[in-house]
């Protein structure tokens, strides 16, 4: 190695540190890429998997590189989103529940399934977020990851499924967030 000035050494050391973090952050791909492959194998549209998966992988890698707590948030978000990813698909593919009719409107059973799995995901993510030092940023990253993961499955019921899942996440998070807020005050 050629001798360097101290300024050059600082810059090189910083660059090496960022490279090390990028290498560390790339481990998150071991969680995300199999999920995307699974989504394709169970028949989700390629465009949907590429778009949502691309956003998920980019977000997951970038925030994991930023800080460990966001890497944890991504892992929790993906784990919390997996039921919401699978449940509507199972209901649709195994034909577990028939289409229902409420007040003359046909209701796809995948929509309430998305909502319920969203509630569970929101609850898990929020419970985990209140143990963190930076709760809001952790929660935001985890919820975004959950939403992206779950949307690949919930979209089987169209926009209604996605909206149901998001509503579920908010509904599941609300009690935990409110309780944490009242405890602080």
């Amino acid at each position, binding site marked *: 190695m050629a001798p360097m000035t101290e300024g050059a050494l600082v810059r090189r*050391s910083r660059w090496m540190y960022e490279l090390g973090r990028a290498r560390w952050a790339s481990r998150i791909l071991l969680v995300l890429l199999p999920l995307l492959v699974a989504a394709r194998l169970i028949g989700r549209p390629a465009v949907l998997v590429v778009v949502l998966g691309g956003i998920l992988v980019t977000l997951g890698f970038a925030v994991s590189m930023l800080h460990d707590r966001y890497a944890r948030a991504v892992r929790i978000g993906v784990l919390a989103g997996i039921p919401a990813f699978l449940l509507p698909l199972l209901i649709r593919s195994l034909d577990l529940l028939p289409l229902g009719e409420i007040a003359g409107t046909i209701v796809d059973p995948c929509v309430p399934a998305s909502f319920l799995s969203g509630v569970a995901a929101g609850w898990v993510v929020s419970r985990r977020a209140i143990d963190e030092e930076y709760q809001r940023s952790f929660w935001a990253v985890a919820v975004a990851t959950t939403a992206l993961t779950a949307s690949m499955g919930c979209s089987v019921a169209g926009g209604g499924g996605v909206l149901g899942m998001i509503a579920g996440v908010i509904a599941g998070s609300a009690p935990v967030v409110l309780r944490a807020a009242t405890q602080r005050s």
Partner: protein
Amino acid sequence: MVALARGERSAFQPVFATLWPLLRQFCRRALLDDALAEDAAQAALTKLFLHATDFQPDGDVVAWAVGIAAYECRSLRNRRIRRAEEPHPPELAAVAVGQASPEEMAIHANLGAALLEVVQGLRPRDRETLEQVLSATPGPGRDATFRKRLQRALERLRAAWRLTHGSDD
């Protein structure tokens, strides 16, 4: 270091300011060569930052850093020994490529001296003939008689060489 391992960029400068003098001092003591120590310390520091994310919170930073520096010192020392990085004597640098080596020059000098000794033992007429050829001076009459005289002189030279030094093959 624990904070840096977690991703706190604000911890970079304090870690650098603490570890750089420590590593430099350690490498100087280990290698007893300032230039080599500087190289080893720089390599150790950059490697340390590359692997900073793998640092365990319950680990000892100084022991970890010194361990990396010791490895770098050993590697550099071994590499230097392998490549024989010691500078060559200046006299060797002055030898041009294609020029005869000192060994070849000594062999030629010895052979020349031995040949001169044998030539001195020849008859004066033969010596004169050989000297004319070696000096490449035209000389009187390079005709058939001269060629015959040269042939006889060379035959006597070979015979004298064989007698003194054995076979000329």
